[in-house]
């Protein structure tokens, strides 16, 4: 099998060009890739238009020499793996599924079907990403726009708690900072870019204005901005509280009120820190307030390639975007109760199906400790801490490189995938459909038992 290399791989002569392919590494989901595919080596050798993260995504996802299925560490057939997975899920009283943000909507839909059938719990990586923004969205609403509108209209772009230069490199160049738009004919020259963060990052030089807020004081700063926008008084010690002077706040408020089209992009620096959904709610509220003066929108900058699709699919199938529980036979939504980190840390789940995610690396110790005690079914394109502790592990094809399907960009725009080369590994969708059929057969059309 070919080995991944650090630099651009060498090419043979049996090449294929895939135009308008889509990169699914991050939530930008750039769909203007031109891929050169070495069909002999089964790898992508050139990814025109890709950023540094996109190039790593395309070059490093080759065909690895892994068994398709391992059960208790022993090689098994795909059918045996799906049989075992279905049995684990049917036998469990509180089965959960988690992940799903790095697979197409078509696979996500089947995962919901399985959990609906067995009265399980379904959650996605949204809960530890912009789940708090999802909660805020339900509470205060969202003044929103597509990235296309932002590219064409936004003359004030504010990034809060994010570092796109390292996490979403083309967010600047394709959507929000440098591109020329219909009403932004000179690109960056026609925009003012503000970055608000607790530290300087590689994104800072892109900004015209950098505002450094004290860690954990985002909410206070946002609330002060809301007050100033509404012409209210704010505390005289605001600089002591937030690290940001009144002069800077006044300047920012004037810029926000006087722009033609403003956007607040929020990163996980808001959702993962003190305040969580209150921070996101304050951002949405600030954007809504500003619509009394001008046009202003707020959008979360989403991480994984199809995490936005996961929100959409789970929402259209259950009515809720993440953290959904079917134990009573109908969907219930309650972050903190049905979100995976909590369900595991409290030791409630007795089986887990993890799709395209690595909670054994990313979750808190207590949650990981419980994951180690219960039967785990995993599907992933590479070996991870989670696949290593799994009773049943499926090696699957890479979405967007080996498979087609649909993904949602971070602004909820659906985009079709154009695969580059075939994989001998099954797709997430095929494995999930196989498990779903077996689960339904085992239950003979009945619903699974309900947890107490």
């Amino acid at each position, binding site marked *: 099998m070919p080995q991944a290399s650090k630099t651009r791989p060498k090419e043979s002569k049996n090449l294929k060009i895939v135009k308008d392919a889509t990169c699914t590494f991050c939530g930008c989901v750039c769909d203007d890739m031109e891929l050169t595919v070495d069909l002999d080596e089964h790898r992508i050798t050139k990814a025109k238009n890709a950023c540094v*993260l996109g190039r790593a995504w395309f070059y490093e996802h080759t065909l690895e020499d892994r068994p398709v299925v391992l059960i208790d560490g022993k090689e098994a057939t795909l059918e045996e793996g799906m049989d075992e997975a279905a049995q684990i899920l049917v036998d469990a009283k509180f089965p959960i599924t988690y992940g799903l943000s790095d697979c197409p909507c078509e696979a996500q839909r089947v995962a919901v079907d399985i959990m609906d059938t067995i009265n399980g719990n379904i959650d996605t990586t949204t809960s530890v990403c912009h789940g708090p923004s999802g909660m805020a969205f339900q509470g205060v609403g969202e003044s929103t726009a597509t990235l296309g509108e932002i590219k064409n209209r936004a003359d004030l772009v504010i990034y809060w708690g994010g570092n796109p230069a390292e996490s979403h490199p083309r967010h600047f160049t394709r959507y929000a900072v440098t591109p020329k738009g219909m009403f932004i004919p000179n690109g960056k020259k026609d925009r003012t870019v503000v970055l608000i963060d*607790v530290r300087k990052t590689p994104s800072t030089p892109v900004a015209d204005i950098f505002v450094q807020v004290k860690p954990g004081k985002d909410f206070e700063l946002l609330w002060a901005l809301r007050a100033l926008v509404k012409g209210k008084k704010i505390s005289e010690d605001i600089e002591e509280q937030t690290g940001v002077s009144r002069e800077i706040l006044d300047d920012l408020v004037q810029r926000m009120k006087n722009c033609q089209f403003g956007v607040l992009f929020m990163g996980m620096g808001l959702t993962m820190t003190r305040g969580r959904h209150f921070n996101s709610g304050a951002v949405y509220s600030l954007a809504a307030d500003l619509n009394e003066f001008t046009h202003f929108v707020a959008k979360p900058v989403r991480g994984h390639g199809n995490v936005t699709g996961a929100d959409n699919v789970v929402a259209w199938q259950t009515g809720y975007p993440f953290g959904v529980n079917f134990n009573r036979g109908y969907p219930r939504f309650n*972050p903190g109760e049905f*979100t995976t980190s909590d369900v595991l840390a409290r030791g409630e789940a007795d089986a887990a199906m993890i799709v395209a995610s690595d909670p054994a690396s990313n979750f808190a110790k207590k949650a990981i400790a419980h994951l180690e005690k219960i039967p785990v079914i995993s599907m992933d394109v590479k070996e991870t801490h989670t696949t290593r502790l799994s009773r049943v592990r499926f090696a699957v094809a890479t979405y967007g490189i080996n498979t087609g399907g649909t993904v949602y960009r971070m602004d909820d725009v659906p985009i079709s995938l154009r695969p580059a080369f075939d994989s001998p590994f099954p797709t997430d969708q095929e494995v999930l459909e196989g498990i779903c059929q077996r689960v339904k057969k085992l239950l003979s059309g009945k619903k699974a038992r309900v947890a107490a």
Partner: protein
Amino acid sequence: MGLSAPPFSLLDFIAAKHSRIRTVATMILVPGRSKKQGTSLNKGKLKEEYLTVTTTAEMNERDMRRLKLSNGDKIRLKSDVGQAVVTCMGKKEEDLPSGMIFIPYGPSSSQLMGSDTAASGMPMSKHMEVEVTKVGS
């Protein structure tokens, strides 16, 4: 343009609060994404490059001098729930506030994260208070 807030020393405040001696300090850990974390992630999360990236913490050079640390030293980060030993690298004083440590997301930062989500589903993944101790060069 180019406005920015004046620098502040969180470490001075916290050090006074905790009355720590110079080689042990309580600091704020901010895990996050980095470009190297993103590219090495694609090679594999069990590969050496990813493990190296996610066990390398950045600290303000002034804080490093205060704690008698040099680039490449091993430090123990200890929170209420766990600990991790990582490599320490200096960052210019103007780029990283005093009292703050940045580390790319990974298994080490997860070890320090509490499981309480305050009914949000989200553990406090940034802004963690950690005790920093030098453990070796």
